[in-house]
């Protein structure tokens, strides 16, 4: 990967070019080292336009949009607390559990047809998995996002605000579930296997 597309480099360019935007680099430890950029949802649309129109970057093609479901997790840590037992101060170990709320994530892979370089990977995260699953749509910036954002909406339930035609694309209208979420269970379609060959 050229230095131009170095994640830290792109982050610096974005934060200089789009005032107020905040970008976090999410490292990828694998040999490919394709680090991704986590955008803040408020400025994501402006950042996307900036990346597309930047004369050196010219990321004019979004090749892939997908969703990721991160479940609520619980972290446990052991902490030392001081307790007074029978008038004597002693130190004891306690386990503290912290709930980390889950979220849905949209991942975008960007390339430049003009400059023949890429990918630059963007991520956006929703506030949680249940009520607030809105993210800004990047379809107005890259037309190729249209169907793929619909797919992420269909299978993960990410609501892309600003999408021109946000309908289910694989499942039918009226389907209530989001099948690619980790807590989804397909219907049993149970039919009692009665005394078939009795």
């Amino acid at each position, binding site marked *: 990967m050229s230095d131009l597309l170095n994640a830290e480099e792109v982050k610096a360019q974005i934060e200089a070019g789009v005032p107020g935007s905040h970008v976090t680099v999410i490292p990828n430890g694998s040999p490919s080292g394709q680090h991704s950029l986590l955008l803040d949802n408020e400025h994501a649309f402006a950042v996307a336009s900036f990346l597309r129109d930047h004369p050196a970057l010219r990321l004019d093609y979004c090749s892939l949009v997908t969703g990721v479901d991160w479940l609520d997790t619980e972290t446990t840590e052991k902490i030392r607390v001081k307790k007074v037992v029978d008038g004597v101060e002693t130190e004891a170990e306690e386990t503290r559990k912290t709930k980390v709320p889950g979220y849905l994530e949209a991942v975008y892979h960007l390339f430049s047809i003009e400059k023949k370089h890429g990918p630059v990977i963007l991520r956006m995260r929703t506030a949680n998995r249940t009520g607030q699953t809105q993210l800004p749509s990047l379809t107005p910036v890259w037309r190729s996002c249209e169907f793929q954002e619909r797919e992420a909406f269909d299978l993960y339930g990410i609501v892309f605000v600003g999408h021109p035609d946000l309908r289910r694309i*694989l*499942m*039918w*209208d*009226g*389907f*209530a*579930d989001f*099948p690619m979420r980790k807590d*989804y269970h*397909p*219907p049993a*379609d*149970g*039919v009692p*296997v*009665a005394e*078939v060959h009795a």
Partner: protein
Amino acid sequence: MADDLKELKIELSKNGIFTTTLEELYNWGRKNSVWPLTFGLACCAIEMIATTMARYDLARFGAEVFRPSPRQADLIIVSGTVTKKMAPQVVRLYNQMPEPKYVIAMGACAISGGPFRDGYNVLKGIDRYIPVDVHIPGCPPRPEALIHAFMTLQKKIEEQALAGENRPRHLRADLPSEFEVPEFGEHGLEPPANPELFPALPGNPLKVLQ
């Protein structure tokens, strides 16, 4: 046919006289002109197409004419994965075919859902909604397997009685020739199976062939 008549028939044929019955003649004609519907769903359809081509030549069995309209077809080969979104259309195509009509469920997906059985979007076998006459396992089945299924179907057609208690569905006014088309529900198809057809018990009069 009574045994003495059979013997008489054999005796006559030895002397160059051909005799037959209406039933035999009728079934002989039907079994050698089973026209399948031009219809494929997944990779099994590629094997089905190969079966019709010169190397395997399904035309040898009188099935060379794949009809592009269900109104002209006698057989629907459900060749491939039936997704839940496609299932109502498959049932509708079957309903549009005139009697007598037959169904071959080709491949693991069509008979049971196959490797996608535990997924969210694949029907667990087309026999939940339409009466299947011959099931072929395989992923996909080779053309020889499809030809075997076809020959099984022909053999069963040959044995159909035109009158009496065991006459097939298309000769009985009290039995339906169309089946309920499933609806899209909130979590899957409604109902998940047609209780008249599934589980597919032997002796169910709705099945054309037993």
